[in-house]
């Protein structure tokens, strides 16, 4: 496997299910670190209010995952999963 450059200001956003339609059906997209999840979603034209769950898996701490608010500032190397409640309850 090609060695990745660990010094980066980039992070990864992974929208689940119906949210993928906002990024042309892709499963993930590279985003700039240093912005909140809310700002990042808005920049991608994903309405932040349809996102119900934000889970951040910081690369530096391995597999531990943490649910975060949309005000969480994305750190470099983070993998941020966002889940919508399009279908409902």
């Amino acid at each position, binding site marked *: 496997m090609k060695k990745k450059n660990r010094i980066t200001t980039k992070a990864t956003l992974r929208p689940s*299910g*119906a949210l993928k339609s906002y990024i042309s059906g892709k499963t993930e997209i590279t985003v700039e670190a240093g912005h909140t999840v809310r700002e990042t979603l808005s920049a991608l034209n994903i309405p932040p209010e*349809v996102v119900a769950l934000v889970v951040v898996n910081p690369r530096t701490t391995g597999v531990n995952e943490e649910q975060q608010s949309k005000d969480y500032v994305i750190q470099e190397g983070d993998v941020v999963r966002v889940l*919508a*409640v399009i*279908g409902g*309850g």
Partner: protein
Amino acid sequence: MNGYGGQILHVNLTTGKITKEPTPPDVVRDFIGGRGFGAYFLFKEVPTNADPLGPANKLIISSGPFSGLMIPGAGKCDFTTKSPLTGGYASASMGGHFTAEIKYAGLDSIILEGISPRPVYLFIDDDKVELRDAADLWGKGTIVVEKHFKEKLGEEFQVAVIGPGGENGVSYACINHDFGRQAGRGGVGTVMGVKKVKAVVVHGTKSIPVADMEGYRKAGMALYKACKDAEGLKDWTRYGTTIVTSWCDEVGALPTRNFSAGSFEGGKGLYGQTMREKIVITDKGCFGCPSPCGKYSRSKKYNIHVEGPEYETIGLMGSNLGIDDIEAVAQANLLCDDLGIDTISTGNAIGWAMECYEKGILTKKDTDGLELKFGNVEATFKLIEKIARREGFGALLAEGVKRASKKIGKGSEKFAIQVKGMEQSAYATHNATAMLLAYMTCDVGAHHNRSWAITYDLQVGRDKVVPEKVARVIWLQNFRPMFDVLGGCRLQWVELGIDRDLYCPALEAITGVQRSWEDLEKVGARIWNLTRMYWGRENEGFGRQWDMPSPRFYEEAPTTGATKGQITKFEDVHKLLDMYYEQRGWTSEGIPTAATLEQLGLAELVA
């Protein structure tokens, strides 16, 4: 008949006569099963103007073609009756394993009619069907009774049981199963109670005939693979429906202090993450479920184990009562389950009473000394008991908020949060017009599961009143309940977002009948219109006024939270109905036209 048990069981509780008839092929063709069977048999077999609590009313318990087969979530069972809460159509869906055993016993529906002279339980073991004495079980809670049957008859028997709430005639008593699953809404447990049926226990060993075994295997596997591959599987399994609690709080949909607001300052204490960390032990699924949304929880504070709470209970028993402690909600959940009363209606009724108390409409003299302030946990627990036993002030709340507010008056009708007499489930709709319309026009009263349109509001503009929103509500109302017709669970589509077209090959392989979603939605529309005609048949003067929501959503804007200062305009409420009726093919009073009924193949049935 492929995909079906093949027989309808009729149990006359008055005479004790038990008969079976072949499942009618034309009813299968037009209504498929589950909720469809319930609607058909209710309309056809229960006489006009039957007293919901009298012998002429029936409790219709139905499986669907998916029930008991290896299709994700094929453990859903429908309970239909004339509602003692609303006086109209009631249909409640229950998960678990009960419906699979109905099919394995060679049955599609069980229809309970008449009134037994003494407490009984219905025993079904394949072809052995008996009414047995239940005098020693009467008065007991649902949990101990289910445990009793499991120990006495064996784990393989599945049990649907009522608690004291159903026995005592609480208008919104539920039916419990699997120690935490409910047919919750509309008083289906009340009807079972008045019929003196403590429980139905069922076990079967028969095979379900399938038209194309290899096709069924392939289609079933494709559905399971889609669930397994879904990105959201891990999160939905971890949190279940509580995934939405924090989101509802954020967008102003979390019912707070009797729906006076949609955001709760103590919300964090109730969020899914808080619950998972504080009380959840493990996950629990229904028959054939790949994404178990049920949570087994333990509260150290109250020294209890309970299945739940899920989102609806958290909303109504938590924020709606000003309670911010998930452990207190778990305890309230357990009390309601064991006593056999619907957590949604109960939380709503207590919320209404608390608002009455805080406004001085009710005092301690009225409430048997209870200080019914929002946030009073101990008073909530006591009131749940009083409601279930119809004791003192509890007897008033046991009527439901519509009748209770009519009795109390003094403006309390305006904050009785209900439509058609059914208390609203856990989405505040001050500024979410599609969701508001969904509640207004729901076929059983203010319930969310037919049409959950609130994210559509967020996507297209919350206060917009446009034909597209109305069309979306109607589409959801025709489509989502079809899972209840098929005997499956909608949550794999709802939560995991699996392709709904994967279900069609499975249905064809099982039944041998090809049906597209277009065909299925037409069946959905047929059932929707039939139940609308039922409301009209049973209620003189039925019309537009019955579809009006609580004035709270068009008169009183919240003063706090995400929807602060936001409200739906009164004229928009009527505009929504105008567009809805037109798109449905109904009159301006909301009655299906002759042409609509003809188009849906209902003209003869409703004539």
